[in-house]
């Protein structure tokens, strides 16, 4: 881990200066946004496959188990006397294994036929969570795992939990009495023994070094003992963990894209072609578990589910292609994480201050709500993603509510036109012509209200399909052509031979 971080920092230092990098990482907002975006990218990529496989809620099961895994690994590691940190690779691997284990367990429970899938998952969530909560409140007494951290994580503090890396002037400074910076002080050697003051004539003195010792680079710089500052970078652990997981996720999907696509859409075909859908889905679950554990520190064990489910669902409403989903969902998740930080600080999408909204509520309804807004960052990220989802749901050009309403209105209109045109076509030139087609009573034949009939007739006349002649509706030549074209089309669609046009 340390080596990877070092290599990354060296790479970054080619583009930015040390001060810029440290300044960036030391800001809570930047670190939180970077961590949130990385979680969103991992979650959205993996979640897209989960969504298409109908396994979205498995991520929920995994995140609940992962809590139990973390707590157990934590207890084991502290019991064995190791330093247990939620970003330690062993803890992450152990907890992720627990996640995969539960998936397998619920699958086997379901395969036994005694419990259905929804019930098996519904049992697994609360049980594992309950055990974890009991363990936490009974045995764990640590800042990193308490009930609040379990719920919302500490993404706002991610910047403070760092590894320090030193790049230049890194030698620990040893100050000996001969060192030019050594400060000599005189110390009385027999004052206490003789209970005399140092001013007494009998006092004997030796010279000792007051600041000798070993200094780490940071301490030495702080004490002003160095002429040149050591090049220190404090790198947040969460960013490192999530970066590794992002690389793993992207790499996995890039390498196995074809296989994942095939097993997602047609598992049976994949199996008959010699792929291993089981192994791939296991690998997918393992990655989901790893990401859930890696994200635990930042967003807790429940809210992480949103990063897996909401962005892919929004992308699913925008595109029909898997590649499109894989591009759009990380973007949506990243936007959610980015604007989520602003929302927690009271700024919706970076422009609209929530305080004004609350103030408006207060004045309209006469409430006395406090207007200041300071909320959980991770929850706000989830809320922003949900808002984006709702926007997509309403405005998506293909599957949105608006598009749906327009499409429905259009087809209703088209249907009304066809019905009226067919009615006129059938009765035009027949003996019942005068009764069936009189404009003032036309609505009765369709059982419509006169108003609706009027609207439809207005539209048909505006289109030039129908005209009025002596109080009766008749087809214009244009309307006649339209009816014939439609009739021909429908006959062709249903593969019926056209009897009428065969006659001369």
């Amino acid at each position: 881990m340390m080596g990877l971080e070092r290599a990354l920092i060296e790479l970054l230092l080619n583009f930015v200066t040390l001060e810029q990098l440290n300044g960036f990482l030391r800001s809570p907002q930047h670190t939180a946004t970077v961590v949130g975006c990385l979680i969103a990218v991992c979650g959205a990529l993996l979640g897209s496959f989960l969504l298409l496989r109908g396994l979205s809620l498995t991520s929920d099961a995994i995140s609940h188990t992962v809590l139990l895994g973390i707590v157990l690994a934590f207890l084991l590691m502290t019991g064995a006397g190791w330093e247990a940190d939620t970003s330690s690779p062993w803890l992450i691997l152990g907890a992720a294994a627990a996640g995969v284990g539960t998936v397998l367990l619920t699958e086997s429970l379901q395969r036994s036929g005694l419990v259905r899938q929804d019930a098996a998952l519904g049992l697994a969530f609360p049980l594992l969570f309950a055990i974890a909560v009991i363990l936490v409140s009974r045995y764990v007494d640590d800042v990193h795992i308490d009930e609040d951290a379990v719920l919302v994580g500490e993404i706002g503090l991610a910047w403070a939990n760092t590894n320090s890396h030193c790049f230049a002037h890194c030698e620990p400074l040893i100050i000996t009495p001969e060192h030019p910076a050594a400060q000599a002080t005189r110390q009385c050697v027999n004052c206490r023994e003789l209970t005399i003051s140092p001013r007494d004539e009998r006092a004997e003195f030796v010279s000792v070094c007051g600041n000798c010792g070993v200094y780490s680079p940071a301490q030495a710089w702080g004490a002003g003992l160095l002429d040149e500052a050591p090049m220190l970078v404090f790198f947040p652990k969460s960013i490192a963990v999530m970066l590794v997981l992002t690389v793993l996720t992207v790499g996995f999907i890039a390498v196995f894209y074809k296989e994942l696509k095939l097993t997602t859409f047609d598992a049976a075909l994949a199996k008959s072609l010699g792929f291993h859908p089981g192994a791939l889905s296991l690998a997918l679950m393992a990655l989901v578990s790893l990401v859930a554990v890696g994200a635990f520190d930042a967003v807790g064990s429940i809210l992480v589910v949103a990063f897996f489910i909401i962005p892919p669902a929004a992308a699913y409403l925008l595109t029909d292609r898997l590649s499109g989903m894989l591009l759009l969902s990380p973007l949506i998740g990243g936007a959610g994480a980015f604007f989520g930080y602003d929302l927690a600080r009271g700024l919706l999408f970076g422009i609209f201050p929530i305080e004004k909204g609350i103030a408006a509520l207060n004045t309209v309804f006469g409430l006395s709500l406090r207007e200041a807004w300071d909320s959980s960052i991770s929850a706000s990220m989830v809320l922003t993603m949900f808002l984006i989802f709702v926007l997509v749901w309403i405005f998506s050009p293909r599957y949105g509510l608006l598009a749906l309403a327009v499409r429905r209105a259009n087809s209703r209109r088209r249907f009304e036109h066809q019905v009226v045109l067919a009615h006129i076509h059938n009765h035009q030139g027949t003996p019942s012509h005068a009764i069936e087609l009189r404009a003032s009573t036309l609505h009765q034949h369709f059982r419509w209200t006169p108003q609706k009939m009027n609207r439809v007739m207005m539209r048909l006349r505006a289109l030039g399909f129908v005209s009025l002649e002596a109080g009766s509706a008749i087809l214009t030549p244009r309307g006649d052509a339209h009816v014939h074209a439609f009739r021909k089309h429908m006959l062709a669609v249903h593969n019926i031979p056209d009897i009428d046009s065969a006659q001369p």
Partner: protein
Amino acid sequence: MTERRAWRLMLALLALGFLMLPLSQALFGLRLTYTVRVVALGGSLLGALSGAVGCFAVLRRESLLGDALSHAALPGVAIGFLLAGRQLGALLVGAGIASWLGLRLVAAILRSTRIKQDAALGIVLVSFFAAGIALLTTIQSLPDASQAGLDSFIFGQAAAIIESDIALLGGIGLLVMVLLALFWKEFKLLTFDADFARADGLRSGLLDALLSTLVVITIVLGLQLAGVILMVGLLIAPAIAARQWTHSLEQMVLLAAALGAFAGGSGAVISALDSDIPTGPMIIVVAFALVLLSITLAPGRGLLWNQLRQRKNRRQLRSRRLESGA
């Protein structure tokens, strides 16, 4: 087709449940304080109610809907507090409204998009929960001290239950039971053959809404004890356990109520033995232990039974092969 063993099990559970307090007093030296008695009573009442209602959720394959609905109640608690202060009634009404809105949102997503049920449930579950958390964190930064204990709705806090809550639980629980009994025939039909119910002229949309409302009411009543995350366990675990013992809906509902009451009461008693064991989670663990026992041991259906039958079949097959070989 009621089965005798299910009745026997029910009787045994009830007897054990009634003996629970005196037994734990004698065996573990439990001190029967007022709180312990109230919490145990509340736990068993809630367990009975959610066991009975949960049967329908499990049989209609809506276990996860229960999970989503209980998470969705959280913002309602927070808004109820913001509007009316710390009054249990307001908090519960808020929770009920939020949970019901979550239900409608799931239905709307399913109706108007191609997103499947699991993802729709996940979206509603986690975004409502996030809204609740965001509101709670904001409330907690208020200078006013009366917000203390609001987050007990997340994990549940049994010790906060007082006698008036028991009365509320009992009263509304009774109402739910009466509704279940009144609409028994309709609910049964709706559960096992919704299409037939619709074809038969039942107002299935209305009945469906009524049944879902009963689930929402049960969840809301349980929030104080079990919390939004764990409530679904109490809703479905007794029903799944009861399902293993019987094929009749009447028996399943009664048995689930008995199992739920047992889990609720004994979970409360066990957690009273050690001050560090939270009550809600302990109840869930007991309920799951009952599920585990039922799945392994239930006659005719359980895992153990299946193993035995397989072994017997294998032996028979082998002996028959020997006979035909000779």
